[in-house]
């Protein structure tokens, strides 16, 4: 399986990663090798086989009752914020 430079760049955009030219080339080679290896899964017949989404039976893990409980106070939730404005997380401008 061989990925093109453009495919790698497109995946990087989806993943919100800016890559240097060098990285694009390195990942193109490495991802091609990894995906080539993964292709061996195509050799198996999986007709009628249900997917395993989780290792445990989801029915045995019911949700807890939906009751209001104490949660993180704003001051503590904001303590590691890179930038804040009062009780808000501050981000760079969104509309360009």
């Amino acid at each position, binding site marked *: 399986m061989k990925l093109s430079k453009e*495919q790698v760049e497109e995946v990087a955009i989806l*993943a*919100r990663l800016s890559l240097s030219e060098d990285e694009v080339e390195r990942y193109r080679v490495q991802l091609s090798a*990894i995906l080539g290896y993964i292709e061996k899964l195509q050799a198996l017949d999986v007709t009628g086989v249900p997917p395993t989404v989780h290792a445990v039976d989801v029915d045995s893990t019911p949700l*807890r009752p939906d009751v209001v409980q104490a949660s993180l106070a704003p001051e503590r939730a904001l303590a*590691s914020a890179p930038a804040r404005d009062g009780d808000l997380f501050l981000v760079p401008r969104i509309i*360009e």
Partner: protein
Amino acid sequence: MNPTDLTLAELSARLESRDLSSTEVTRACLDRIRATDSALGAFLFVDEEGAMAQARAADERRAAGRSLGPLDGVPLALKDLFCTEGIPTTCGSRILEGFVPPYDSTHVRRLKEAGAVLLGKLNMDEFAMGSSNETSAFGPCRNPWDTARTPGGSSGGSAAAVAARQCFAALGTDTGGSIRQPASFSGVSGIKPTYGRCSRFGVVAFASSLDQVGPLGRTAEDCALVLQAIAGKDPMDSTSLDAEVPDWAAGTRGADVKGMRLGVPKEYFVEGLDPEVERAVREALRLLEEMGATLVPVSLPHTEYGIATYYVVAPAECSSNLARFDGVRYGMSSREEGALREMYFRTRAEGFGPEVKRRIMVGTYALSSGYYDAFYLRAQKVRTLIKRDFDEAFRQVDAIVTPTTPGVAFELGERSEDPLRMYLADTYTLACNLAGLPGMSVPCGFSTGGLPIGLQILGKPLDEATLFRVGGAYQAATDWHTRAPRIG
């Protein structure tokens, strides 16, 4: 005898009889860390002050006859992906540099309630992605048996710290072998319990359907003492199982394997298995047989698809989980120029290391439009086939015994440029995660070069008791787990 040479269970007995104080033994661990860690790099953060305060409190409880149990006053350490209130948690990544969690993980909270002394945070592969601890943004951890080699990964710091007698046990996590593989490479014991045995609350997520918390310790009994303190239903994690937590430690004492049926999968003894590892594991099997177990040949026919399945499922889940690192709420944020979109791209480009980016890229590709069915959905179906292999085998046997890894610890740098070859170090461990089963590794010998070899024991869902029984019986009959590396 230095108190750090005791096992956790031995230490616990001496604390109980007041022959040793927690203050003395905590001081001894801190001294040991200071003497040995510049050569190893196992710790990312040592909380000397906090540890000594916890030790004094434990001594006061014991003096007043109010001991909290076997872990009261016992020095332990944590892989640096457990959230610790007020103490930095990096997950081995630049992107979490400076992050101080506002709460404790369920495990940290339960260990504190059991009186454990928490020495600090341990080195690991970045976001637990790696098999050698080399992807840590803060430098690799080294193997105490040979510092030119890896201690294994991703819980490399946990394994090295236990092997080097810096702490009495450590918590790790295991997504594809990250407890058992480093335990094997570093000559210690470790168990990944059944998926759902332990909560995942407060553990930085990698691949949520595979991640599981567990202990690394000197012996199976030590692992049991820690696991039974942290396991059990947690309302904060809906996938944590509401199953009774037995006294596994008691089950390791005087354990025997008489009448037990142990499966030996032929697919695990194939080309690529180091002959020295095979010899040690076969010798361990022979001994278990001599002790009264019956060895039963079994087949796990989809074994060869394990790595390919894992390297679709794990990266897919990681690419989704790691989307949360956006530079907005905590950790690194690169926002010198440009708007919000640039901040996302730059923060993630500068904050994540090469292996994490590689897996995010693989996962994003596998989940992207047009490829989902061919990769992710298909991998989940193969996961079902792998699971069925185990269901079938466990109809005939009580546990399955295999090598933990195909080879002994490799040299730092040897595989870091070849991701596929690195992934092969997990060949024997990752099926257990895909199937959600419990798995343990115990030391079972050494290579001629003096490097540890591990025996893996896989069990039925929620049947950790059988693993502790086999591990306990094997360690009562052997002394591999008592050997210590010469360091410091």
